């Protein structure tokens, strides 16, 4: 199910080239528009489809999986932090989905480098980074010896 570019809609911005994890979206030397140079190597991650600001990229379904007349299109709206899908089935049914991407503004979450280095005691502790606070509990649940039943052979 490789991707393909509608060259009339593509404005040659290069975002799909940047984002493709397979390094197969490149710029055509005749039209200076994007195209998939190796459809065999496409793993249909939809990164380029979602990244294209002009929604100029679509995915071609394999005939044994996605029948003719179907349509699967996605609209990623970063400013609204939503991703919307429209699935059209061959028999005319249509399903629409809208999901949030995040609930906080882009760039607002601290990166690991912004945190203080853990102390040597914390490194030896059983608790992982940000525990137990990130789990929203006072302490991790743990069994005490008196809770264990005696072992019977």
């Amino acid at each position, binding site marked *: 199910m490789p991707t393909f570019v509608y060259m009339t809609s593509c404005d*040659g*911005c290069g975002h799909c*080239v940047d984002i493709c994890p397979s390094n197969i979206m490149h710029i*055509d030397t005749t039209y200076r528009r994007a195209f998939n140079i190796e459809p065999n190597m496409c793993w249909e991650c939809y990164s380029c489809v979602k990244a294209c600001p002009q929604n100029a990229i679509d995915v071609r379904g394999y005939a044994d999986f996605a029948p003719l007349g179907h349509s699967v*299109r996605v*609209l990623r709206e970063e400013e609204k932090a939503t991703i919307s899908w429209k699935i059209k089935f061959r028999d005319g049914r249509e399903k629409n989905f*809208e999901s949030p991407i995040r609930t906080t503004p882009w*760039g607002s979450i601290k990166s690991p480098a912004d945190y203080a280095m853990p102390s040597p005691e914390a490194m030896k502790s059983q608790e992982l980074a940000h525990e137990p606070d990130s789990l929203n509990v006072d302490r991790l649940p743990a069994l005490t010896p008196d809770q264990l039943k005696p072992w019977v052979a």
Partner: protein
Amino acid sequence: MLFSNPFAELSASIAPIIMQTYVVIMIVLVAGGTLYDMAHKKSATYFFRNWRSAKSKGTQNVSSGQMVSLAIQTAVVDGLTSGEFCNVQRRVAHLVTMYGFLAYVVTAAVMVFFYPTPATPTPAILPQLWNFGALMICIGGYWFWFFIRVDVVAEGNSPLRLVRADLFILSLIASATLALIWAYLQAAGSAWTNVFLVLYIMATTLLFASVPWSKFSHMFFKPAAAFQKRVAEANGSRRNLPSPADKPETFGSTRRRPRHY
């Protein structure tokens, strides 16, 4: 140089009728080249097939009044202000080059046809606009050539790499640069004037004659594609895309300049 019509001065050695014939040939080459390109790529066939498909998938009727309104929006937003570009630098460079090109060719045609000899005094605004237009082409063109081209910026290719996609922008920059040099040398009475005149004619002929092989005709296709996109949004088909989410745009953006190297 800025106030003198270079074509009127040239009429001393080249008859105005030859210059006018050349301009007409260039116009015919552009029109013919675009039509040949459309026939060869079947652009019109696919455009109207897409139009009919979008119309059949549409959920709403678009009245003729709405069509006119969409055409005006396309002309103003996508045409006059190059609204398709999301990147500000690309948009500004395109606007500078586009308006420079319009000023350059229109004033050249007016000067050649209506003020071809020194006997018909040229209004000062025309050579000024011609020079300014050529300068704008050079500013926008070289800026695009070295700093904005996606195959250079996003893919890391050398700015000096030449591919077929560069035919239009290179011939355009060459024509404008050589026009300015030629006009300057002619005004200064230099012995190199004729050399640069020949080079200028060659670059200009290449620009207009290479239409079937270059990106020249994008200036006709892009407005048509933009209009078709607006009509598809208005009639509900939206190229099968989902409708925009009904949420506020409060999250900002994380898009960075594509740099895949």
